[in-house]
């Protein structure tokens, strides 16, 4: 346990020392929120059931944080540690392999949560968010969403041969998903695109978070929960079978 704590603290420091990781996980989603917020404000809109633009979009920006942190950053860090031999060196100590991976999951989870917290705090201060959903519902949805997307990141880190290809493929997966899932684009997408978007994990993340955040019930989101839980299970199995330490 002490090793896990020490390793996690160290990896957290290293994450914060990487300007690109910090910017994309914490800064960029905030920038997008402030940018759109300054354009559209957060006045109540009748079509949105009395909620404002920022209220509507904040679950999407949260999904963005989950995507950049969990998919791009996690896949990049894990595959580059493997490629450079950082894992090799750690495995030559009494460290248990699950501890090494758990530290990465923890760090990325904490950073994702921090990214969401920043959005909520700034959103509240600047735009006065009106969100009816209770934390007790939103948090488990956030945890499930994060873990499923992390799972996807691990699969990419496992099946890609090099750090470079893992990073590239994570972006190839992430960026289209970011636009098509409705996480940043405020207007409804065309019908056909929406249908295709149903296969994208991030779409389900956005829908689940948005639904619960706006006060919806879990029973209305069984499809999303099922999809994300299934994805998590599949990803864990696939990474367990394909993950290599070197």
């Amino acid at each position, binding site marked *: 346990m*002490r*090793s896990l704590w*020490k*390793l996690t603290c*160290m*990896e957290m*420091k*290293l994450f914060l*020392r*990487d300007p690109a990781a910090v910017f994309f996980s914490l800064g960029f989603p905030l920038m997008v929120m402030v940018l759109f917020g300054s354009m559209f404000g957060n006045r109540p809109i009748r079509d949105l059931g009395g909620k404002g633009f920022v209220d509507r979009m904040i679950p999407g920006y949260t999904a963005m944080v989950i995507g950049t942190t969990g998919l791009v950053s996690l896949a990049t860090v894990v595959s580059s*540690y493997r490629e*450079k*031999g*950082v894992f*090799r*060196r750690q*495995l*030559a*100590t*009494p*460290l*248990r392999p699950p501890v090494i991976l758990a530290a990465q999951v923890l760090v990325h989870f904490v950073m994702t949560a921090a990214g969401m917290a920043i959005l909520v705090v700034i959103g509240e201060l600047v735009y006065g968010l009106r969100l009816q959903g209770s934390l007790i519902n939103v948090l488990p949805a956030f945890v499930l969403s994060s873990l499923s997307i992390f799972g996807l990141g691990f699969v990419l880190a496992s099946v890609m041969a090099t750090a470079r290809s893992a990073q590239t493929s994570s972006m190839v997966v992430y960026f289209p998903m970011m636009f098509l899932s409705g996480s940043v684009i405020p207007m409804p997408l065309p019908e056909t695109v929406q249908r295709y978007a149903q296969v994208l994990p991030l779409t389900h993340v956005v829908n689940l978070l948005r639904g619960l955040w706006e006060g919806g019930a879990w029973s209305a989101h069984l499809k999303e929960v099922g999809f994300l839980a299934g994805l998590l299970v599949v990803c864990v199995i696939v990474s367990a079978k394909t993950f290599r330490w070197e």
Partner: protein
Amino acid sequence: MLRETDMDEEKAKRSERNVAVRVERLRKTYNSVVAADDVSFDVHEAEIFGMVGPNGAGKTTTIECIEGLRRPDSGNIRVFDLDPRRDGYALRARIGVQLQQSALQERIKVWEAMELFASFYSRAADWRALLEQLGLTEKRNAAFESLSGGQRQRLFVALALVNDPELVFFDELTTGLDPHARRAMWELVRGIREKGKTVFLTTHFMEEAERLCDRVAIMDRGRIVALDTPENLIRSLGAENRVVFTVEGPFDPQPLCRLPGVTRVETIGERIVVYGRGDMVVVEVVNALASKRIPFRDLRTEQPNLEDVFLTVTGHEMRD
């Protein structure tokens, strides 16, 4: 002479001590490549055991099988009566490892790496003293990515010692080190042995193996082709000493050939090489030259060394 015998006895005594590592019939293949083939040897407690061999001989494979980092195809390995695959965690708590190839996180600082790795062990050495000993104190706040090759190497050696291990593995101990750092590293390794600990190292520097190691195994194409003290390995070669000097003008090798102990004389232009056995050959040659008033310069003697043994038992050509 007396000192030599003393040293041999000392080494013989050491070799009677307990066995720290026992490798029996180790075999490891990668697809079609046989990296280790029927490898058997013991490493004794409190000795410096060296392994040398050409690139691709199987040294890293062997050492990493012993550390429990690679799975042998077959064979038996015991380290302090532990099985590296079954009791890997217990084993790795007691050993120190410097890998030939590995890295740390780019932005981790030297002191952070030391503190982090120390936290992985229940027993820990004073890592600040280790940094001092390895000349890294000034670099303690430097990020790993900013270290030079030799500084990284020294940091990895420090990390290998952070748990005050009973047995430490150095895979290419001094690769990338400048001559000062290399000498300092030898002192450090001897210091480890003086504390009763065991060192297993690989090296490409024959001088290092000869001067530092109590016993040396020569590995070639996945097999151990020789294993003994450096002195015995050299002696077993049965090679002659050489006296080399330069003369000006014509030179008649005949009188030198008749000297006691001299086996043959080679003339390469102005350079003369006298081959012979026994320690008196030099004296005989110098006396003969002086009495015949033959002017000579640049006289030196060359003893056969581990490099000769290496070249003889592994063949000369480069391969992989």
